[in-house]
């Protein structure tokens, strides 16, 4: 109860909380959030439980919540059948490439639009802003572009480049960068310019180091986005040696190639979500905290 006295921010403060009605409402909110948290956690826990069940246990009536045994040998056997190292390496290459393209090209674009503003950039800015809300127009023409690149006529299917190129033109991130750079005092840049720095140098030496908050935000968006991306990796890398883990997950459910039982599918799913869970466990405060930073408010 004491802590309520410190509540000075938000919709209602300590004074409101004196009324019993508001207190009940506040308690209800808390309980609602607890339930919601349970709903967020439970499916993930359930994957771990199901992964260790035998096929018979999975269809048993009456059902059991816990598996009979957490048999780690089964994990080993499965890892022998599915080359996780390969899939995770592929995933990592996709993520790192997309991240680099995202930061560099969208960052540069944001910088040019915010700070250099060459002739005609206002129009470009409008067009880019429009692109953000433009609905996609069938995947066919873009797919066609990738399998026969204009002018150079190279088939990029089976290469990571299409995914990276797609990350390199993210209108939303360009606007995030632009908004952030708008807030950097001009003095810094002018000083550097007088020192004879080229625009590229200004970007890397002055702007980037000052932009940690927005870099964190965009990096999180980028990494989660490409980690989660399925459709294009599937179309571009599916059935090639470069399949990332998300494509593997789809392939095992529709019975192409590997033939797995339902419990094994759950185990693959479990192994696929362990790395992001671990990373999140380590960095969750930074991630959710970082997303609070300016740049999102616009």
């Amino acid at each position, binding site marked *: 109860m004491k802590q309520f006295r410190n509540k000075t*921010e*938000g*919709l*209602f403060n300590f004074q409101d909380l004196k009324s019993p009605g508001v207190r009940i409402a506040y308690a209800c*909110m*808390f309980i609602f*959030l607890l339930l919601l*948290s349970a709903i*967020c*956690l439970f*499916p*993930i826990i*359930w994957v771990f439980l199901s992964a260790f069940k035998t096929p018979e246990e*999975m*269809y*048993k009536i*009456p*059902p059991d919540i816990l598996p009979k045994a957490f048999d780690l040998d089964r994990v080993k056997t499965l890892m022998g059948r599915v080359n996780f190292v390969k899939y995770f390496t592929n995933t990592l290459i996709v993520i790192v490439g997309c991240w680099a393209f995202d930061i560099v*090209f*969208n960052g*540069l*674009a944001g*910088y040019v639009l915010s700070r*250099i*503003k*060459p002739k005609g950039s206002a129009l*470009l800015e409008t067009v880019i802003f429009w*692109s953000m*809300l*433009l*609905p*996609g*127009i*069938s*995947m*066919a*023409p*873009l*797919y066609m*572009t990738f399998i026969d690149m*204009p002018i150079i006529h190279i088939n990029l299917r089976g290469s990571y480049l299409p995914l990276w190129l797609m990350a*390199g*033109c993210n*209108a939303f991130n*360009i606007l995030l960068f632009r908004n952030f750079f708008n807030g950097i005092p001009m003095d810094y840049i002018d000083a550097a310019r007088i020192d004879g720095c080229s625009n590229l140098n200004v970007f890397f030496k002055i702007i980037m180091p000052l932009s940690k908050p927005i870099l964190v935000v965009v990096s999180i968006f980028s990494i989660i986005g490409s980690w*989660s991306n399925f*459709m294009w990796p599937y179309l571009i890398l599916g059935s090639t040696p470069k399949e990332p883990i998300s494509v593997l997950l*789809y392939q095992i459910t529709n019975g192409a190639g590997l033939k797995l039982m339902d419990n094994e*599918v*759950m185990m693959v799913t479990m192994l696929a*979500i362990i790395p*992001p869970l671990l990373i*999140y466990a380590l960095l*969750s*405060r930074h991630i*959710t905290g970082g*997303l*609070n930073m300016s740049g*999102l*408010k616009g």
Partner: protein
Amino acid sequence: MAKASLKNKKNINIKSFIKKNISGWTLILPTVLMFVLIVWRPIVIAFGYSFFKLKGFEPVEFVGTKNFVDVLTDTNFLKTLWNTVQYVFWSLIIGFPLPFIVAVMINEMIKTKGFFKVVTYLPVIIPGIANYLIWKFIYADGAGGLLNMFRYFIGIAPMDWLSNTQLAIPLIIIAMTWQGFGATVVIFLASLQGVDQSLYEAARLDGAGVFMRIKTVMLPHMYGILALSIIRQIIGVFQVTEQPLVMTGGGPNGATLSIGLTNYLYAFKYGQFDKSMALGVVTFLLLIGLTFVYFRMDKKIND
């Protein structure tokens, strides 16, 4: 002296003009090229090619509006359009208010704010495809599904979930919401923290209740971000493809077939890229209206 300095200044001006424009455009050129290649050119291609019969990706014959007629007169077109509208409807009912309500609630918490934020964001980091797989198992028919397990423990017979034509779309939307709402919560929270506390104080002194404060202080502050996210959500959900592809394959009997999935199947299952592009153009024209609405609204807010 004066003349010389003027000349000097002019030189600097030309130099800086060049520096500004040439180097500016050079720096942004790769990004612009990517936009051309990946965003703008495909739109032009889709509009152009949809009037041709394609063999693979080679236009072989100009067929006028035949592809459009084929796509629009397909007896399933209206059904899929209606399904798609249902996806959007349910996402507005379930997916839109939830993150807002949760963000407002979390923002009111004192010590547990961080915890709730971390937990609600957790599903976001699970790869989308894993999410849909998990939810497919949760919704599984018979005793194997998690929901049916719950029904078993409270003593009622198992029922159909995704195989139920009435329930399938809302259930897919629930799975999508589970995955995505945490990301929106964080954005809304950032916006909520920007609310000027003194406005709440003033409203409180004026005797405004909680709902009045939401109406007069919070909503006006968040109007922009709410409008943006609602439009993006409608546009996004209207193109829903991979969720029904993974969870139901469009069934039962086409009950979860969306326009996006139809488009995908035209292109990548049946290899009818011409029809796919025609349907893409139709969707594009339907949705571009929404983009206009947004810009009208955006302008109004900014003015």
